[in-house]
């Protein structure tokens, strides 16, 4: 057991917590934060596990750097989408306006909730 491994286990816990949040939460921004938490957890596992004998390993560190950039790209894109979605529909969750059926009837209803 090395400190690195401790962080790997912390990563495992973060994945669990994040997953719970991701599946549980409805608000899209919260979902997004949960996604970032899982991401951090995965990165911790990646580096922590690879460095379990205490020696730094530059390869997973480089991978995590790449991963962070990808994550911020995805997050930023998601934020833009969410904001536009909110702008158009006034909603902050993915709940369908009219139940689950694919009928388009209730569409005008959610339009009226436009923001600003």
């Amino acid at each position: 057991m090395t400190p690195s491994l401790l962080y790997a286990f912390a990563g495992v816990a973060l994945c669990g917590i994040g997953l719970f949040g991701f599946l549980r939460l409805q608000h899209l921004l919260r979902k997004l934060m949960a996604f970032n938490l899982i991401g951090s957890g995965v990165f911790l596992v990646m580096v922590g596990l690879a460095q379990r004998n205490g020696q730094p390993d530059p390869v997973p560190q480089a991978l995590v750097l790449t991963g962070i950039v990808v994550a911020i790209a995805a997050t930023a894109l998601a934020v833009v989408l969410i904001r536009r979605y909110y702008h158009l529909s006034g909603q902050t969750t993915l709940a369908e306006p009219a139940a689950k059926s694919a009928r388009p009837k209730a569409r005008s209803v959610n339009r009226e909730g436009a923001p600003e």
Partner: protein
Amino acid sequence: MTEWLLDGLLVLALLTTAVAVLASRNLFRAVVMFIAFGLLMALAWVRLQAPDIALAEAAIGAGLTGVLLLDAARHLGYNRGRAGDGDDQGGASG
């Protein structure tokens, strides 16, 4: 021993803030917690002998993501969509 203590505390703090991010009722608070989480992550990376990631995490993870989320949270309104509403249906599992 002190190192272990330090690491243990850091991990504990990380997990606590993570839970706080998801559990806090106020969206704005959650985002602030998220920024704090990013900073703690940066510390963790330092402890993992990964200064590059620490820098990136501080700048990107905590800084930029935080600002983005803050701005979005302001746009969407702080008190909309509290943590506890709705059922457990996720975007992925539907």
